[in-house]
């Protein structure tokens, strides 16, 4: 069906057509997905095969320097007058071997069991108690993760070493001299400038994001909980035990998880869209034609963004507390006899939920105003004019022109807000602390989100394994959402347009 045919359909037919094409597209999308995965796998194994073919081949045809560098790293450099580079390679090899023998190897050997010896007291020959140091599972896991990363890096270094040796030999055969160290360093400021620029940030991210992340992902498969706390107790691998506990295995966990997951999703949807739609309406009012003192109104709202969020949240929590100023005002006006427990009423958890959403609207609307004002001004005026001539009321104009246009432009921002709300720790933790409490939930209250539950599990109860498993679940939810939407977003697809 071409565009003109499509435009002649009525709305219901259009909807059916879209629905039909959506379902028709599913098998194609699935098959192309699996084809892509298959292609990727094939390319991966072909790459590995080629690597080994080259690896053996280079050894066969290579000269002495190249052959030697398969065993002693850097030979390909210092035998070809690249003394400094060669020494660096050799030093790294020596350091790696020393590290593996002296430190990493020992931990890596215990990776399978995470330690066997429990710390405790033993009695020596004279019957005196002696404290015995046991294995520390946490350190074993941490250091073996580190060692694994170092091994991967070392393999990469080894491959580079061989590549350098082979290239040096080629250069000499062609009658040129290999680069000396000063030329190499100069390259780092020019052709290879990206290495210089990324070195420090990548190292920092490796140490403080990737290493912790791998460590936590591994912890999700252990029983590192309040009963297994190093250094006095050992913990070990339990496979997918934590996940099955959360979903079905442990009735208490499963119930808590189900409740919190539902509330997290409800919260994310309501919080995102309430702030968005109300914020757009306020922004439209501020930008209304012929309105004076726009900047005064805008400044009033922006003030709420400018004040640090933890201050406003703690302030709101105080104002809404049982003796807080809101209750005082309501009592003085004679509207209530006794204070309302906005955030702590255990008999009516929905009151706390609604309160939190209202406070979040207070916090969120100014952000929407800030980010949409510019876009609203860019909507072509003639769209509204022709709509007015056709007799559209302001509400219809808003629903049919403003909102679709805005949503089209701000989808990426909307998605990141949604993901941000799933992980919105501050609002929940500083306002209600997850309360009101509920004895039927494990370490959680009625308004806890997955992330605040995660926090409580680790901080109050040392259940690191459950926390890590929940973290992975949150990642899967957020990752799936972002992947689906970001991949369909123009600004991501067109990234190359500037490149």
């Amino acid at each position, binding site marked *: 069906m071409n565009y003109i045919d499509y435009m002649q359909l009525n709305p219901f037919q259009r909807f059916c057509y879209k629905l039909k094409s959506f379902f028709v597209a599913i098998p194609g999308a699935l098959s192309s997905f699996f084809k892509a995965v298959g292609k990727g796998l094939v390319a991966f194994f072909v790459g590995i095969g080629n690597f080994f073919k080259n690896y053996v081949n280079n050894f066969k045809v290579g000269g002495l320097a190249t052959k030697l560098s398969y065993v002693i790293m850097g030979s390909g450099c210092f035998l070809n007058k690249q003394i400094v580079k060669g020494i660096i390679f050799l030093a790294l090899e020596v350091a790696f071997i020393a590290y593996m023998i002296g430190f990493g190897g020992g931990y890596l050997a215990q990776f399978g069991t995470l330690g066997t010896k429990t710390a405790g007291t033993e009695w020596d020959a004279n019957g005196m108690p002696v404290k015995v140091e046991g294995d520390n599972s946490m350190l074993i896991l*941490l250091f073996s993760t580190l060692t694994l990363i170092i091994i991967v890096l070392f393999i990469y270094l080894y491959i580079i070493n061989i590549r350098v040796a082979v290239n040096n030999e080629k250069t000499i055969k062609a009658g040129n001299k290999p680069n000396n160290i000063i030329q190499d360093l100069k390259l780092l*400021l*020019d052709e290879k*400038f*990206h290495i210089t*620029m*990324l070195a420090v*940030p990548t190292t*920092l*991210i490796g*140490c*403080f*994001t990737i*290493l*912790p*992340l791998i*460590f*936590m992902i591994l*912890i999700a498969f252990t029983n590192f909980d309040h009963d297994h706390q190093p250094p006095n107790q050992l913990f070990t691998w339990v496979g997918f035990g934590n996940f099955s506990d959360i979903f079905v295995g442990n009735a208490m966990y499963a119930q808590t998880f189900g409740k919190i997951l539902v509330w997290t999703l409800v919260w994310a949807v309501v919080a995102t869209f309430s702030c968005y739609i109300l914020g757009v309406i306020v922004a439209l*009012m501020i930008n209304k034609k*012929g309105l004076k003192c726009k900047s005064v*109104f805008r*400044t*009033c*709202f*922006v*003030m*709420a963004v400018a*004040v*640090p969020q*933890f*201050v406003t949240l703690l*302030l709101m929590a*105080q104002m809404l507390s049982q*003796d807080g100023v809101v209750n*005082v005002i309501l009592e*003085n006006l004679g509207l209530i006899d006794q204070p309302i427990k906005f955030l702590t009423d255990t008999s009516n958890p929905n009151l706390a939920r609604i309160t939190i959403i209202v406070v979040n609207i*207070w916090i969120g609307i100014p952000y929407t105003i*800030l*980010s949409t004002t*510019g*876009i609203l001004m*860019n909507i072509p005026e003639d769209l509204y004019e022709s709509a007015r001539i056709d007799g559209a009321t302001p509400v219809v104009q808003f629903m049919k022109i403003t909102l679709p246009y805005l949503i089209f*432009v701000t*989808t*990426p*921002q909307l998605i990141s807000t949604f993901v941000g709300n799933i992980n919105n720790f501050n609002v929940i933790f500083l306002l209600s602390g997850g309360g009101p409490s509920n004895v039927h939930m494990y370490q959680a209250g009625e308004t806890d989100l997955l*992330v605040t539950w995660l*926090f409580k599990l680790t901080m109050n109860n040392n259940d690191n394994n459950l926390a*890590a498993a929940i973290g*992975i679940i*949150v*990642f899967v939810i957020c*990752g799936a959402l*972002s992947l689906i939407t970001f991949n369909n*977003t*123009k*600004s991501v697809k*067109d990234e190359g347009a*500037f490149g």
Partner: protein
Amino acid sequence: MIKSYKTKRAISNAIVYVILTILSIIWVLPLVWIVMTSFSGEEATFIDHVIPTSWTFQHYIDLFTQTDTFNYPRAFLNTLIISIFSCIISTFSVLMVSYTFSRLRFKARKAFMNVAMILGMFPGFMTMIAIYYILKVIGLSQNIVGLIIVYSAGAALSYFISKGFFDTVPRALDEAATIDGATKNQIFWRIILPMSKPIVVYTVLTTFIAPWTDFIMARMLLRDATDQYTVALVLWNMTDKEKIDTFFYNFCAGSVVVAVPITALFLKMQKFYVEGITGGAVKG
């Protein structure tokens, strides 16, 4: 007909004025209330009227002199040190990473960017638990030095906005400089960076404000090391159920002290902030 349209418009404008005024009051009132309360001279913490009957500056003096339970001046100094240092390190790292991804072409570029995107999807919290143990091994847990390292280490992952900026700087500049014999190093430091003042200001601002207003990471890493506490932690502890009766007015004063510099900075730099958050969206 025209007249009626004008009246209609006047009426609708009047309605909008009324609504906006009410909303503005709702938005500003809590902030006014906390400033007012911080100057309140009332004896009791919870009173049955809203506007205090007497005024005093004593709470601010108390806040900075009575440091037995809560050492506010120390916390303020800690927060300042953390923010300044992590701001300097993060600014360099964010600008370098975003420039590299925007301008330099190398084999692993796409792979690096995808990894950065995936890393951003894990809840930041999950890594915090592990970071605590790692810092404990190095001996930097419960210490502001550890906090500075962690804030600056993660900053480079939020390179998107400044990359978007560098993408818009014309490439012809690089080419001209290359023809004149400049290396890529010189192009970055001498040509592109001096031209990119708005994004430098924006990056400095955000990387300064982020640690200043952060609560979770500090709570997670500092635990019970009270002398290393940041302002956010001290204020949070003041609102504890047993402490709030005694420290309520100090809490208000402390909130005002910590909020004023950031609010002033933000209002002044609002323009950059708006350009930053909408920069990625408008392109679509």
